[in-house]
């Protein structure tokens, strides 16, 4: 029973990481109706940036802030420079551009920082908080940070004029343009936010999986599964889905064997798509003929 409880708590911690990447995916999906395959690699690249800053002697939270800010700028720049010219192309062209971004980030990171695995520090103390033996303080801390990010996003979208404008631009671009919202910039802003969230997720996952160019591969897939499970157009659902996938992954890993972990993601994705394609909290899209 102790083992089971421990697995669930550890699962919640990894689930927090999946939840933040899932959240980033949902952000871009809401703004553009595209799933960004390069999301994981963008997060990985931002984490390397944080590592470089830490190596240069910047204190952790300073590096954290600089990284999140530069990831935001990078995301905006990517949308304006790379994605915008193909905005109105067929979906497959955009998918190929995403794949291209994925390999570029992966390769450039390997080129600049080499492929050797690097340890990445955790901002949280090494000994468990509150004297419990179930969950390390890093796990607890990263889960808390995920929840804080979610709360901030919720507040931003719900209570600020800019958030309202972004939601409007995603829902009805034409009418939004008519009332004076700069739809193009709202998209870029969405990319920036997603990149920033991804950067946070990258810095939280790096202490557990270690820093290397391919570290986000599995994470991205679980994040997909989580986002689908919760509903790809529901940020809250995506977070919950991410946590559920994290717990499932850990429990399956402990009791069935680790070699089928990725297959679990496949089962979750296909299962959700077959039983309830809109996910737990997603809206069912009704198309008028």
């Amino acid at each position: 029973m102790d083992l089971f409880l421990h697995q669930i708590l550890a699962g919640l911690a990894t689930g927090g990481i999946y939840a933040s990447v899932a959240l980033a995916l949902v952000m871009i999906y809401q703004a553009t109706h595209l799933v960004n395959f390069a999301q994981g690699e963008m997060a990985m690249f931002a984490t390397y940036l944080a590592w470089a800053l830490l190596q240069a002697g910047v204190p952790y939270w300073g590096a954290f802030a600089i990284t999140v800010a530069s990831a935001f700028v990078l995301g905006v720049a990517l949308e304006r420079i790379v994605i915008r010219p193909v905005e109105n192309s067929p979906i497959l062209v955009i998918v190929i551009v995403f794949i291209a971004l994925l390999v570029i980030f992966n390769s450039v990171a390997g080129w600049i920082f080499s492929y050797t695995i690097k340890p990445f520090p955790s901002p949280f103390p090494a000994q468990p908080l509150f004297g419990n033996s179930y969950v390390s303080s890093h796990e607890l801390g990263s889960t808390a940070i995920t929840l804080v990010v979610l709360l901030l996003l919720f507040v931003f979208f719900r209570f600020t004029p800019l958030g309202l404008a972004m939601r409007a631009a995603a829902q009805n671009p034409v009418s939004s343009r008519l009332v004076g919202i700069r739809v193009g910039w709202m998209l870029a802003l969405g990319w920036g936010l997603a990149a920033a969230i991804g950067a946070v997720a990258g810095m939280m996952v790096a202490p557990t999986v270690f820093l290397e160019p391919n570290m986000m591969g599995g994470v991205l897939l679980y994040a997909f599964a989580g986002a689908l499970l919760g509903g790809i157009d529901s940020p809250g659902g995506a977070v919950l889905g991410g946590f559920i996938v994290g717990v499932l992954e850990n429990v399956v890993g402990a009791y069935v064997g680790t070699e089928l972990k990725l297959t679990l993601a496949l089962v979750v994705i296909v299962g959700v798509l077959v039983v309830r394609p809109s996910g737990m909290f997603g809206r069912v899209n009704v198309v008028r003929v």
Partner: protein
Amino acid sequence: MAGLDRRKLVAVAVLLVLACALPFVIGNYRVFQATLVLAYAIALLGLNMLTGYNGQISLGHGAFYAIGAYTAAILMDKLGLPYWATIPISGAVCFVVGFLFGLPALRLEGLYLALATFALGVAMPQILKHEGLAHWTGGSQGVVIVKPDAPEWTGLSQDQWLYFFTLAWVVVFFVVAWNLLRGRIGRAMVAIRDQPIAAQAMGVNTSLVKSLTFGVSALYTGAAGALGAIAVQFVAPDSFNIFLSLTLLIGVVIGGLASISGAFFGAIFIQFIPNIADQISKAAPWAIYGIVLIAFMYMMPTGIAGFLRLARARLARRARP
């Protein structure tokens, strides 16, 4: 072949003659590469049927390539079947698997299908490595295949013989695809891509056609996987990772969606551009590859075949003032 005008027929004949002459003028390693290009062309044609003609995006066709390759390897290594007999069997196995995967995929569209197939592609190496199958698949060690010898009367080297063997299959698969896509079924496929509801109203059995397309597409890719495996003489789980699936999709889009000749352009691209990128920059070859990809998408959003079609139309317009 009705519908193929004389100019095109001559062009195809000339290309075929050139293709037959090719292995006698280049070295063995280049012949091996050309064989892989031919195998990729079959796989791309299969994926193009699904994605280009039928509008279903698959990010996991590497899985079918893997299933075809493993079927061939197991049949040859464990059951001692001759290499030529493995191609149809691999195709048939993949047809069944593809058809079955296509059934749940019927409910999915666009992005969701892309995600489901993406997961299939990512999970495939793990499934192949699983202990339960290790007796057949050899686990992470993979299976080694003996390279088939050319029959004595031909006097060809092994690589040359394999090239002609693959070329023969290419001809068979392309003639079949050409007939399939020009006929009733091909039109139904395109109709489903463009106007699913109208197609249904016209009496097209959309779900059957869609899952059949999935099956046939998997058949092509599986047969290509078998041919590729015989050429490489080796199958291992990690050579069929998600990048293979992405590469196949890249080949289809670069070659040209809904274009038969595009399969060849795409196959040449995915076989040779990584090598060229590697020569340009040893440090970050994949970055060069990604930049080339983006450049292609900016300049030729309809792929190489679409670009050539446009260029030809423009030249024809200029020629007659």
